[in-house]
């Protein structure tokens, strides 16, 4: 059999990771349904807090604004955290299935592995979030007149890059700590949820948490998304933070990939690749 050219081979391998995850999603459809219902009901429950606050506090509170504020936060977080989990748990998932040595023995590059997994994470995250949004629209009278949807899409795209980098960096932990790595990635995700202003402005946090909020890319993505959807802020206002977020995301991907390669070498030196946790 004639060997394909290196670039074409890596492209085929990239699709291999995407197709594999699509097959897995289909085979685990029961769990997919469970998580979808869970995410949808969580999003609805959070969004209803907006209307509930208006009822409790009186007409001084704009319930519809608050509902949309919370819905944007919960949907963007649902999307970004999905990307984070799919990428950060790629090692743990393969350890659990018992395929990690097979995947790491293949001649495709580790970058291809990371790109393929990240590509699926983004496509999966978009599809899932759009479904939740469509279902949520049945429950609320969402008024998007005046929203700058183009700017919102760009914020989401740039946010995807940042969270891909974060996910790759977090994937190092299951590689280094077979027994505790996944727990650690969950702690990271929980901290990001707390400090990124998903359900409230970060200004209400204590000073030291506000300092941490500055290093979370989710803080900027959620703030940018709210600006675009609730206040119709266009790209003119957002250019500088978008460029900074984009460059930061790229730097995080490069740093994450480098850290992953070091962790892989360490795992191969100490025999941690195979151990199941």
């Amino acid at each position, binding site marked *: *059999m004639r*060997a*394909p050219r290196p670039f*074409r*081979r*890596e492209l*085929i*391998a990239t*699709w*291999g990771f995407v*197709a*594999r995850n699509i*097959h*897995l999603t289909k*085979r*685990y459809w029961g769990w997919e349904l469970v998580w979808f219902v869970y995410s949808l009901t969580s999003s609805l429950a959070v969004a209803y807090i907006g209307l509930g606050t208006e009822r409790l506090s009186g007409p001084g509170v704009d319930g519809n604004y608050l509902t949309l504020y919370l819905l944007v936060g919960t949907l963007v977080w649902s999307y970004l955290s999905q990307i984070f989990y799919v990428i950060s748990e790629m090692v743990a998932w393969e350890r659990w*299935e*018992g*395929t990690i*040595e*097979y*995947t*790491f*023995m*293949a*001649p*495709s*590059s580790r970058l291809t592995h990371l790109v393929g997994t990240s590509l699926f994470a983004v496509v999966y995250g978009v599809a899932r979030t759009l479904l939740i949004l469509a279902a949520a629209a049945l429950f609320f009278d969402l008024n998007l007149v005046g929203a700058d949807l183009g700017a919102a899409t760009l914020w989401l795209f740039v946010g995807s890059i940042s969270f891909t980098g974060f996910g790759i960096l977090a994937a190092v932990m299951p590689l280094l700590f077979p027994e505790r790595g996944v727990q650690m990635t969950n702690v990271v995700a929980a901290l990001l949820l707390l400090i990124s202003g998903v359900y409230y402005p970060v200004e209400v946090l204590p000073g030291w948490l506000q300092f941490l909020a500055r290093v979370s890319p989710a803080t900027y993505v959620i703030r940018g998304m709210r600006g675009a959807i609730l206040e119709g802020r266009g790209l003119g206002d957002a250019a500088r933070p978008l460029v900074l977020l984009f460059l930061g995301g790229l730097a995080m991907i490069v740093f994450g990939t480098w850290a992953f390669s070091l962790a892989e*070498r360490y795992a*191969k*030196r*100490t*025999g941690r*690749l*195979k151990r199941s946790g």
Partner: protein
Amino acid sequence: MDALSIKGLKKRFLKGRKGEVRALWGIGLRVAPGEIYGVLGPNGSGKSTLVRIVATLLLPDAGEVRVFGYDVVREARKVRELIHRVSTEAAFFKKLSPMENLLYGARLYGIPGRIAARRARELFSRLGLPPERVGKPMEQLSRGQQQKVAIARAFLHPPRLLLLDEPTTGLDPRSKREVQELILELREREGTTVFLTTHDMDEADRICDRVAILDEGRIVAQGTPAALKARVSRDGAEATMEEVFFAVTGKEWRDDESTEAV
């Protein structure tokens, strides 16, 4: 050029705070192209560690391992293009079907899905995997069928060096025989070099051109099965491989499959 050459290979693992396990200690061997070379040893003797190092899944502490001249540490990508490993455990996505698992595996080696699917069907047919099983989740297949799928996956992108890490452990006698026949057939048809670890004395005797006996991380004897048996035979009676093992290690052979392999 040797298909596989190993010189002075050492590997140890740290256990706990101060303890360490010497998994391999000064291993040296050479495997010729087209040869079936068996590494025989009890569980914990270092067989799986040896295969993992050749498969670029573990880094050695010392020594040199080359596959068709390529160094497994410095030229790992080149080595990975030439090898494939089939292990005792079925390294599959349990919910995916044999076809879905093979498509994934083939794409990692740069084989497009359409070509891989056609080749997979041919291999399944040759291996006698019932067509109705091809689309079922792997977890619904028997161990013997899973092992056949593992071997089919290895031959989607025919390797020049096939690493078989106890490929028949846990199989019933009939499945074991079928897998052994398959190894011999594939060597004959594809000219593949096979590096096999086993703790099955009869298997080593039956299918290997040469064997090395590994004990506590060291090779204590190597040669053809016939030569090793001749070395320990008494009164003209042909010795068994168990007797060879006893003679070179001073230990009784214990075929304990439940012990975790090193």
